[in-house]
């Protein structure tokens, strides 16, 4: 790819035409690329690799997604895998129905469950990020130092600089957190408001209290 400048310049459409001449066409080419990625790939990255317009790739991705879910198969049977868009990119996963069977083959990657304390701390950080440990402590009513360390170690949260006022380290969630939660973006987290009856302005309260 970096040698492109040396080689004779290819017209953009020629590459696309090449794709169509290959067995399975652009759809299969997209599948081929999805087979080798080891972290979510954005539609822009995929479009660059295939030399196709992003919109076209997005359409193909959605077609594949439906296809794997059994929508376009003659007998409507879903495949054992699915294509999902999470953490800002696309990636192939085994279908969750087969978790028991698959887990026997996967040695690593499935980490131990989080403790209640770790989950609560993670929830506060996810909704209040970037946030300092002191602030999380105040909301949870307990010291959270060691829990925060565990969460960093597991790659669920990370450093987000220091608070200009207090000088304390700030934390935010990582893209791995989004991946583990199966969402594309922090804004997809369930709304906190329904869980907080009549207290829209809580932020003011706990801020003044620290």
């Amino acid at each position, binding site marked *: 790819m970096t040698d492109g400048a040396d080689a004779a310049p290819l017209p953009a459409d020629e590459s696309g035409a090449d794709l169509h001449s290959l067995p399975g066409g652009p759809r299969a080419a997209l599948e081929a690329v*999805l*087979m*080798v990625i*080891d*972290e979510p790939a954005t539609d822009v990255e995929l479009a660059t690799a295939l030399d196709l317009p992003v919109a076209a790739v997005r359409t193909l991705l959605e077609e594949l997604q439906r296809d794997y879910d059994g929508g376009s198969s003659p007998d409507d049977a879903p495949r054992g895998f*699915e294509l*999902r868009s999470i953490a800002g990119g696309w990636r*192939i*996963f*085994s*279908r*969750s129905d087969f*978790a028991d069977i*698959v*887990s026997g083959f*996967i040695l690593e*990657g*499935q980490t*131990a*469950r*989080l*403790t*209640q*304390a*770790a*989950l*609560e701390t993670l*929830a506060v950080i*996810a*909704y209040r990020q970037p946030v*300092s*440990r*002191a602030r999380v402590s105040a*909301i*949870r*009513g*307990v*010291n959270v*130092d*060691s*829990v925060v360390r*565990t969460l960093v170690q597991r790659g669920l949260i990370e450093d987000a600089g220091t*608070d200009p*006022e*207090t*000088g*304390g380290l700030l934390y935010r969630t990582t893209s791995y957190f989004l991946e583990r*939660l*199966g969402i594309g973006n922090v804004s997809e*987290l*369930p709304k*906190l408001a329904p*869980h*907080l*009856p*009549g*207290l829209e302005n*809580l932020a003011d*309260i*706990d801020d003044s209290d620290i």
Partner: protein
Amino acid sequence: MTDAGPAAEAPTEPQAEGRPGFEVRLDNFTGPFDLLLGLISKHEMDITEVALARVTDEFISYIRRLRESGQDWVLDEASEFLVIAATLLDLKAARLLPTGEVEDDEDIALLEARDLLFARLLQYKAFKQIAALMGRRLEEEAARYPRQVSLEPQFAALLPELIWRTSLADFAKLAAKALEPKAPKPMEVGLAHLHAPAVSVKEQAAIIAERLQDGGPLSFGALTADAADTTVVVARFLALLEMFRDAVIAFDQASPLGDLTVRWTGPERDWSTERLSEEYEDVPVPAAVPGDGPEPAEAGEEGHDD
């Protein structure tokens, strides 16, 4: 609140948090807010309902039980519990007041404390519910395994040759840095704004000595009249004690609570602050205060409890 039960009892990984004892004694409550919420739900009370008296009693008896169990509980957490217990006690006291009458600032302060506690509890409850949702979601997602296979050999061969510029010595340095045991990060209470300059007792002693030698007896007030802040006053006071111990000054007080006059009794010129102990650290402090009987005795009892 019915969903709180199973969530709290859900099997958890071995206590990665490192303080298992404390949590176990509290039946898996993860903190004072959690305990309060647990008590409130046990009595099937609405969290917004002002019916804290019963909960207060139970909460305080929890703390008493903790105390009686005599184990070392982590100070941070203990103090959190105590803060909440104190707030609850205040609230309980407020309930004994005639209702509907807010008379003075204290009443208002109590009401504010109550509102604050409710607000914090509600917030905590919201996050607890969200955490349960999140836990379920994480578990559902864990049933999906991403494809992350290693590169097929023919593609791996295409990777550009690795540029390696790290010397053996640099590599060892990296390892040493990475393997160095990390001290637990300090709590991030910002101290940057507390830039009080250190005040040296010796320096202040020199100033005092000079003034007393030049100007004769001076009152403590006169000796500290020019002090820029309290630290300097304290340092001069400590300096006086030091100098008295070194027998270079004497105190005169005409009447009880009257002005304290300080006069120089030491050698004329060759006294030096070098003779004073370093920064007051060596001044003998009474090892035990006899008047403080009850506390050490109690501590002793706690030790026997197990």
